[in-house]
């Protein structure tokens, strides 16, 4: 049955940190909490852990009300953004620490510690102190400590944020394998859409202490319910152009002609906001239906093997994400191409009215 939050509010000295949170985490599920900083992710985790009491509302585990139950009496493990280990204990003792209070036989503790250490590939570091490890190894130790407890609820508060890119990628992949072997409910917070997509499972998009949308992670990415969700769940941020649908055509931005397709065709005439993910802009035509966007470059930002081209089209400021490195002079004119089948359409209240069909994205990436 799992973990249920009912109408949870958290108010700290007059400031609302969480408001009206209704959530359900089924047993064994993998859940992502996505939101920008200060969205309330950590507040929510603290309530899930039992470190904080909600101001209003109830928390149920398997139908049992645990709202006021202290963290010591719950089966919870947590991994933090900071690498939290006992500084004076070796890696071995750190991993063993949650087991020592449980009264398990020494040989059994030893077996479990070694097993989990091997899984996280720190089995050759067991004699070291945390201060003698690299950041990645310290976080592996912290994760091992959380895993060995075999808690029903495993909370991870942006565990990979403080690691460098390479280690982050590595651990992300390993974590998925580890989660798959566990029966615990995993709740993982992140600010990064890419990370959320890699983890899969279910997602809860948070913003300013409220839930914007819940659902399967990939489904939510394809169908962001509102403009706000689309913004939070895309990096670089999704681009918007105001446009008008009239008959079988739409005119968006500065005279861009878009033939209606898919779900768009059922929309009535009127004004809409059209969303374009930055990775759907291309520098060369990819199909004959592509719409052309004429623009001026504001900045070309090279990020690894990608280039983020910031440009403006009319008054709108947009970003395109291109594979490869492109030198673009500031102020130079460029033409970008977008497949009209990749457009999201939102009404003026910000609600999604048409999303690209699944096959159109496939066609795009092919």
């Amino acid at each position, binding site marked *: 049955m799992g973990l249920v939050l009912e109408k949870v509010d958290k108010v700290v000295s007059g400031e609302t940190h969480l408001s009206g949170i209704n959530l359900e985490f089924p047993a064994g599920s993998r859940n992502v909490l996505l939101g920008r900083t200060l969205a309330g992710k950590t507040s929510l985790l*603290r309530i899930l*852990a039992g*470190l904080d009491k909600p101001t209003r509302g109830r928390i149920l585990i398997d139908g049992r009300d645990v709202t006021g139950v202290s*963290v*010591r009496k719950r089966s*919870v*493990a*947590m991994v*933090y*953004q*900071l690498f*939290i280990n*006992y*500084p*004076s*204990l*070796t890696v071995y*003792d750190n991993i063993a*620490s*949650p087991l020592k*209070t449980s009264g398990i036989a020494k040989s059994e503790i030893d077996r479990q510690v070694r097993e989990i250490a091997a899984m996280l590939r720190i089995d050759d570091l067991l*004699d070291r*102190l945390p201060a003698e490890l690299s950041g990645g190894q310290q976080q592996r130790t912290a994760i091992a400590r959380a895993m060995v407890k075999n808690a029903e609820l495993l909370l991870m508060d942006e565990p990979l944020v403080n690691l460098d890119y390479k280690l982050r990628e590595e651990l992300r992949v390993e974590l998925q394998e580890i989660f798959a072997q566990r029966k615990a409910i995993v709740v993982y917070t992140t600010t990064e859409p890419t990370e959320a997509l890699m983890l899969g499972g279910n997602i809860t998009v948070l913003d300013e202490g409220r839930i914007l949308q819940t659902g399967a992670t990939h489904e939510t990415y394809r169908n962001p319910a509102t403009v706000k969700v689309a913004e939070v769940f895309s990096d670089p941020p999704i681009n918007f152009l105001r446009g008008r649908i009239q008959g079988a055509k739409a005119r968006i931005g500065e005279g861009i002609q878009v033939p209606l397709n898919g779900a768009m065709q059922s929309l009535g005439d009127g004004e809409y906001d059209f969303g374009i993910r930055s990775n759907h802009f291309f520098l060369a035509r990819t199909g004959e239906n592509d719409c052309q966007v004429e623009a001026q470059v504001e900045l070309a930002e090279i990020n690894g093997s990608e280039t983020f081209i910031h440009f403006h089209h009319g008054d709108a400021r947009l970003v395109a994400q291109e594979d490869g490195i492109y030198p673009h002079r500031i102020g130079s004119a460029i033409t970008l191409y977008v497949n009209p089948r990749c457009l999201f359409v939102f009404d003026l209240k910000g609600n999604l009215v048409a999303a690209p069909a699944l096959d159109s994205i496939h066609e795009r990436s092919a």
Partner: protein
Amino acid sequence: MEKWEDNKAWFLVLPAFVIVAFSGIIPLMTVVNYSLQDIFGPGQAVFVGTEWFKEMLSNHRLHDALWRQFIFSGLVLLIEIPLGIIIALAMPKRGWGVSASLVILALPLVIPWNVIGTIWIIFTRPDIGLFGVGINSLDLLEVPFDHTAKPIYAWITLLAMEVWHWTPLVALLAYAGLRAIPEAYYQAAKIDGASPWATFVYIQLPKMRGVLTIAVLLRWMDSFLIYAEPFALTGGGPGNTTTFLSIYLVKLATMQFDLGPAAAFSIIYFLIVLLFSFAFYQALLNVGRGDKA
């Protein structure tokens, strides 16, 4: 990058070098010079080699003073370090209480040392002092309280003075160390079901190691060099019971004018402080690094 031909940088180091030379090296070398000569008067000195060192090392009064000094400094550390940690743990973590307790703690530290001596002497005087009169009126002691009456009274007064004066420093250092521990550590300990004692031993104490090392070193060196307090209180008495190393040294050098032996003594004194500070530092550096079994 090519190396510069003219190394002007040396020129910039020169002022610092001159200051260190005048404040440290030259006085120290003068003392070394004295320690190797017998001085009768201005311009009348005989080279005596290591004689003064031999004499000083077998001097009973020096041995006694050294033991007194070790016991005193040991007691100071045993009282001030735990007490400072307890105060730091009890201090508020947020709100107006933080500034209030910081100001109150800092008070003894900003009072000049001779004023502290005077305050405590008056406080403990048997005729007008609050403590002296108070304890004597209870009529519990066989010999009425008076620092010159019994060695133990002088010692208690000195220790009280020292603890009152310097525990705040230890507390402030420990408090700074505690405040530097991220909240997540405490949460993690809670989730692990750790007791407050375990949290103290496995999180707070190891995280305070750096500042506590400094506190121990400072208090050790400072109490080892104590002079003003016993000098103001009883001048080293009653008898010689509070004659610590520096008191004895000053008697030797300025009252008996035995410059040679006093210089040799100074060097031995200096080496002892240096040796023990180094030993403490090394020991504290390795303590709590976990037993690598």
